[in-house]
Each structure stands twice: as C-alpha cells, then as structure tokens.
C-alpha cells in the first residue's frame, strides 16, 4: 500500500512538472505581453525610454528558459511570486481564493451526491416509476441546460421576485459569518450540483440495475433482511465502485470548472482570479492557479483510486 502511494506521488510530481512546462509555453505563445495587456492601445503612447523601463519592470524580453527556471525555483521554495498586475504576492491572492473554490466544489459535490445517489438508488428499485421519471427529468435538466443559463436564471428570478441576491454582498468567510456564507454558497452550489447530480444519478442507476438481479442480492432478500439493509448495505455497496469513479471525475472537473458560476454569482474564487489574470497576462498568477487546478485533479484521482481498496476487497487482493 505504502509503496503504491509513493509510486503515485512520484508520478504526480512528474505530471505536474510536465503541466508546468506546457502552461509556461502556451502562455508565451499568446500574442501580446504584460505591457500591452496592462495598457491596451495606450501602450502606443509610451516614449521609447518609457517602453524600455516598463519592459524591464515586467520582465518582457527575458529568455524563456531563464524565466521558467526562475519561476520553477520560486515554486519549489513555496514562493509563488508577485502578481504583475496588482504587485501583491500570488500566495496571498491564491490563499484568499482557494478556500472559496474548495467550499463551492465540496458543497456542489454534496448536493450532487444527494441528488444523484437518492434518485439513482430509488429510481433503480422501481424503473419507470414516479421517482425514476422525476430523476430522469432532473438528469435531463442537469445535463442539457448549461450552468450559466441555470445560474443567470436563478439570480434573475430571486432578485426580481424576492429582492434576494446574497452573493452580491461582500463575500463572508464560513467562520466569519456562517449564515451569510451559506446563503452565498448554496445557490451557486445548487447550479453546479445539478450537473454533477445528473451524471452521478445515471451512473448509480445503471450500476444498481446491474447488481439488483445478482445472486448475492437474491440471497440477501431470501435471508429475510429488511428492504433498507438489502438496498443500502448490499445493493448500493455492490454498485459503489462506478459511483465513486464518477464522483472523483466530477470533483476534479469541479475544482477547475467553477469559473463561469463564480462569475455569475460573484464569488471571489480561483476561477475568477484565473479569468482576470489571463486577461491581464498576469503570468505568475495564471501559472500558479493552473498548476493548483492540475494538482487538485491529480490528488482527487489518487484519492479515488485509494478509495477503491477500501470499498472493494478484490482490489486490495490485487
């Protein structure tokens, strides 16, 4: 087990190194640089002496390799650098935004799991019944309607009908003002959770339908176990592996996929930081945030794989 974890950690480091090279190169291939990104066409108003001074200030024209080594060296020492745009430390920007995105991703996952597992399990027990049809409807909306449409619709409806838009107030930390924080997180989490729930619901339903007719299910029922025990201890546990896989994939996507919803619901998370930084060609911030997204995805995948060994004894044996 430990050797497997060590192997995975090593491969994670190699993957992150590869990701860092790709991010670095892709950003430099984009047209423009930090000076024109900051100033727009006003950059044309600069005198030659001003331009030289600003190029030096923003590190424009430095050899790529030197820039990369310098950035990587800083990353390895935990120093994420300084934002070119705001001149504040990248670590402080990321430190403020990361908890918001994590909270949103986790809340979305919880909502998605509740929707997906409950509809998936109960729908599979009586296919084409009322619950199953309702679940299919929810899945259709969750998969078919883009999150920006659901989000914008929610914001407009709540604001015009109830004069209610808690996210438009300054973001409140969970421990600073828990009640306001929950109101600010709930609706964006619901918007994202619908999509997550739809995917999990379909996976759960399909996996449940597969195990419901297996021998161990018949044995459990034949033993006279209660319906609750049969459903949750035997059937659901038997169907759990694909559900965990799908949940892991969804959580990975959520960590990097909150950009649009953060914009609509005015949440100061990593997605919003990334969008602002890309438009400002704020390379140190873009590189750090992208690397964090990549690391998040890899860690979630690793944890998912490790969960298999807890859920399925056969995996442990292998």
């Amino acid at each position: 087990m430990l050797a497997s974890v060590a192997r995975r950690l090593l491969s994670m480091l190699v993957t992150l190194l590869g990701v860092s090279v790709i991010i670095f190169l892709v950003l430099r291939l984009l047209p423009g640089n930090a000076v024109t990104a900051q100033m727009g066409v006003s950059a044309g108003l600069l005198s030659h002496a001003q331009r030289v001074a600003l190029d030096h200030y923003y590190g424009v024209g430095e050899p790529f390799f030197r820039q990369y080594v310098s950035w990587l060296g800083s990353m390895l020492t935990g120093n994420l650098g300084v934002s070119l745009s705001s001149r504040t430390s990248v670590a402080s920007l990321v430190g403020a935004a990361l908890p918001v995105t994590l909270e949103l991703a986790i809340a979305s996952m919880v909502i998605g799991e509740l929707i997906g597992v409950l509809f998936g399990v109960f729908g599979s027990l009586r296919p084409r019944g009322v619950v199953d049809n309702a679940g299919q409807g929810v899945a259709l909306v969750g998969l078919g309607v883009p999150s920006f449409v659901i989000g914008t619709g929610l914001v407009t409806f709540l604001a015009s009908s109830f004069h209610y838009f808690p996210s438009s107030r300054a973001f409140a930390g969970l421990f600073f003002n828990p009640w306001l924080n929950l109101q600010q997180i709930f609706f964006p989490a619901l918007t994202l959770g619908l999509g997550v729930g739809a995917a999990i619901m379909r996976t759960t339903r399909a996996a449940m339908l597969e195990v419901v007719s297996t021998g161990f299910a018949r044995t459990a029922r034949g033993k006279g176990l209660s319906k609750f025990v049969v459903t949750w201890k035997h059937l659901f546990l038997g169907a759990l592996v694909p559900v965990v896989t799908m949940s892991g994939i969804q959580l990975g996507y959520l960590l990097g996929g909150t950009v649009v919803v953060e914009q609509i619901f005015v949440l100061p998370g990593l997605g919003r930081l990334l969008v602002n930084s890309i438009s400002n060609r704020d390379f140190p911030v873009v590189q750090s945030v992208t690397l964090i997204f990549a690391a998040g995805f890899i860690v979630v995948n690793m944890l998912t794989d490790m969960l298999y060994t807890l859920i399925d004894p056969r995996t442990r044996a292998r």
Partner: protein
Amino acid sequence: MKIARTAALLTVAGLAPLAAMATPLTAGIEPAQAAPTMAASGATVVVADTSSVQKLDPDVVTNFLDFQALGLIYDQLVQYNSKLQLVPDLATSWSYSNGGKVLTFQLRHGVHFDDGSLFTSADVVASLQRAVNPKTGDASASFLANVKTIVAAGPYAVKFLLSRPDTSVLNGLTSVNLSIMPTKAIAAGTLAKQPDGTGPFEFVSWSPGNSFVMQANPHYWGGKVKIGEVKVETIPSEQSIASAVEAGTVQVGLLTQPQVADHLPKSVRVDKVLDLTYRALMLQDRKGPLANLDNRLAIACAVDRQQVLEDSVFGQGQVVGPVPLGPFASKPVSAVCPAPNLASAKRYLKKAGDPNGFSFTAMTSTALDPTSSAQATVAQANLAKVGIKMHIQNLAGDAYIQDWLKGKFQAAFAWNGADPNPYTMYGRYFGTGANLGVPAGYGSAQLEKLLLQGDTATSAGAQRATWAQFSRALTSQAVWIWLFTAYDYAAVSPTVHGFSLQPTNSTSLYSLRTATVS
C-alpha cells in the same frame, strides 16, 4: 482563511446546504433598496462594475474603473465640469504670459493630504516630475510633451515653462494620471500600496479583483462629504449587477448594455450620459485600394451610420463626427456625406477607376468592443450595395492590439478615447511626431498645421474656427469613418440622491462627492 478550514468544511458541508434549504427564503431576504449600512460617519454606498480596480498608483493606471475610483481620492490641478468646461480643482486660477510660453497656476490654500501634510507647490512639482520620469511609465506624460520645466513660484504658485504656446496642456492635466500626490509619499515609494490624495475620500482597503473601499475624508477642502463610505465591488456580469441593484445590495451599478438598463424595474432610477468615447472605422491610407481618396470617400458615403448605431447599440447613442462632444463638437458630422448617399458613393468609385467596387479587410475585436461585430456586419451590408466587399476579421483582444499598434491592418473598427479638446484627441494620431501615427494610417502637412494652429490659438473664436476646419479636413479626406458615441448607464437606488454620471469616463463617480443617501 486558512487551508485547514477545508477539513472542517468536509464535515459541515453535508449539513450546510440542507440547513439553508430548510429555512424559508424570506428569512435571509433583505428588503428591496435596503437602507445602506452606516459607516463611522455616514451611509455606505456600494458601487458595482464588471471590471475591478487593478492598480493603486495613479500614474500608471489605464483601466476606466481605476480612474473612477482613484478620481475620488486624488485631485488634479484642473478638472472638467458636466458641460466639459475646464474648472478649477487644486489650482484656483491660471494664466498664460510671455506669448503663451509661460503658464502660471495659483494654488488652493489650506488643503491637506490624507497623511495630514499640507499641500503646496512642491507637491505639484514632485508629482508631475514623477509622471514624466520614463521609469514611471505614465502614458499621460505625453500631454506634458511641450513642458520644458515646472518650477515653484512661491508656496502656492507654479509656473510651467513651455517650448511653445500650448492650450491642450490644461486638458491633459485633468487626467487622473497627472494627479497631485504628497512629496513625502513619492519619496517613500508607498503610492502603489497606499493611495494618498486630497480628494473627498480616503483609501481604506483593496482586495485585488474583488473590492476597493474608501471612506469620507473629514478634511476635504470642498466641504463635508455626506457619504461615509464607498465600496467599489466587482460583479463580472451586467445582468448580475442589475439583480444586485434590485436586491438592494448595490446602490450604484455601472452599466454599458442598453438591453440590461432597459429591463430594470421602475423603482430603480437609470441615469444615462453620452460617453466621451467614439466608435470609428479606421482606414489605412498607405496601402491597397484605401490609399485612393475616392475609394475612401465612397465608403464614407455608403456607410449608414444611423443604421450602425441602431443595430449595434439599439440606437442608444448619437452619430458623431471627429470631435464627438464638447465646445468644439463637429457639425456637420461629415463634410462629404452627412447622411448615406449611394449615388455619390458610386460616383466616387467611378472616379477612382473602380466602378464595380473593390474589396478590403476590416478587423474587429468583440473581446475589446462587444458591439464591433454588429457594427461591421451593418457596414458590410451597406458597402455591398455599391459593390464594395468588406471582409471581417475578428481577432482576440491582444492580437488586435498588437496589429493595431503596428498598423498591420487595412481597416479597423475601433473604440477610441476622446477629449473635449481636439488637440488632446488627435495630436497623438496626426500631429508632428505623433506617437500613434502608424495606427492612424494617415498623415498630412495640413492636419499637422491645423493641429498646431488650434493648440496655440488663445482666443475662443480662433479655436472654434480652427477646429471646425480641422473636422472638415478629416472628413473631406475620409481619413477614417467616424460612427457614433453611445450612452453609459448607471442603475441608481432610490436611496441615493444627487448622483449623476459624467461624460468623461474617468470622472463617472465624481458626483459621489456631493451625493447624499436617505
């Protein structure tokens, strides 16, 4: 917040959304147009914009919201009023002498910076010397190109020694980029993190990408500021800004999209003002068919500017000529074809030797101007009526900027900044040694002469005559095709009184210095 809190989140996240769901919606609802919260010395006004404050150093800001927010903290020597006339700010009066080569400002007495230091002429000299220092990178330093030296003439007077008579320097001095800062803070190098001005509000805090907070300056020279605190919040979508104003969490929402402003409920006041920027189709005289004057004139006559305005911003604006607003506004908007005239367009094409038309490419960037694609589509249809084929090339923002700066285009749909003074607007494009001569795509001795003549003219009558001639020269040569200027909007809560937008983007929030909140 620390990363450690995520562990706690894992345990509570399962319950939190349920708790919120279980509670009736109304429990957390604030009443519409909720009374703003009270800061230490008055009400708080929350201003929302899709952009965010990106920098704190007034010398290097280029973003509109940075200008607007820092414009409430800093003062300049002179400023525009709502009629775009120059009025005193930190200078109480000014006069030219020595044949227009010396400009003397008398300064306001008894003004203090936020750090408590007294404002004197030394601060003016230090601030403007900082602006022209190449290491600062102040794009507005070009407004001081004709200023040889700035010297103090006593504690409350400064003299600008000019290389030639220059009236537009006054207009340039209205820029937030040429704000007056305390000598002490300039020497200490703290202005990028701690703004320190003489304006109606003082800096409190800044969360990059999210919010910028100011409080009333109790020592403001212009009288008591009635609003206690101004919070500038970033709300990335205009629809969300409108919702926040409806919900009462935002008191002033800055908008540009007419369709959003139109759908606000009647309880929200919508203030609108013609913005001092303009849209134009810039043409490169230097290459291809557009180097032929008659072909450019054919374009000028074929394009229906009113239709471009209608289709791109729902008619919410005004068709304009080279000088859109202010005392020297162009009338008529074009010397050749003030209204579309297809017969004239065909005549010009015949004269150019292209009776069946010609083709060219115009670049747009919907990333920089969301309406540019609609403008281009209408112009394309208009031009097709006389056989001119215009290809549209939509570029990403940075690609557009790079090509624009290098003049690597035949034609470009552009959204340019303007000024009441035509020299300030066009000296950079068509003046002698203009910084933006390459993207301007046109140069002539006549334009250079008229620009110099207008900038050095001292009487109002001579200025008006010269600038009218300048507008005629630009449009009769179809240097570019000037299209329209659009409205800016503010959704204002009924609790805010006395707030009105200003035509200059950088001073949009200016009226907050005198506004009140009920």
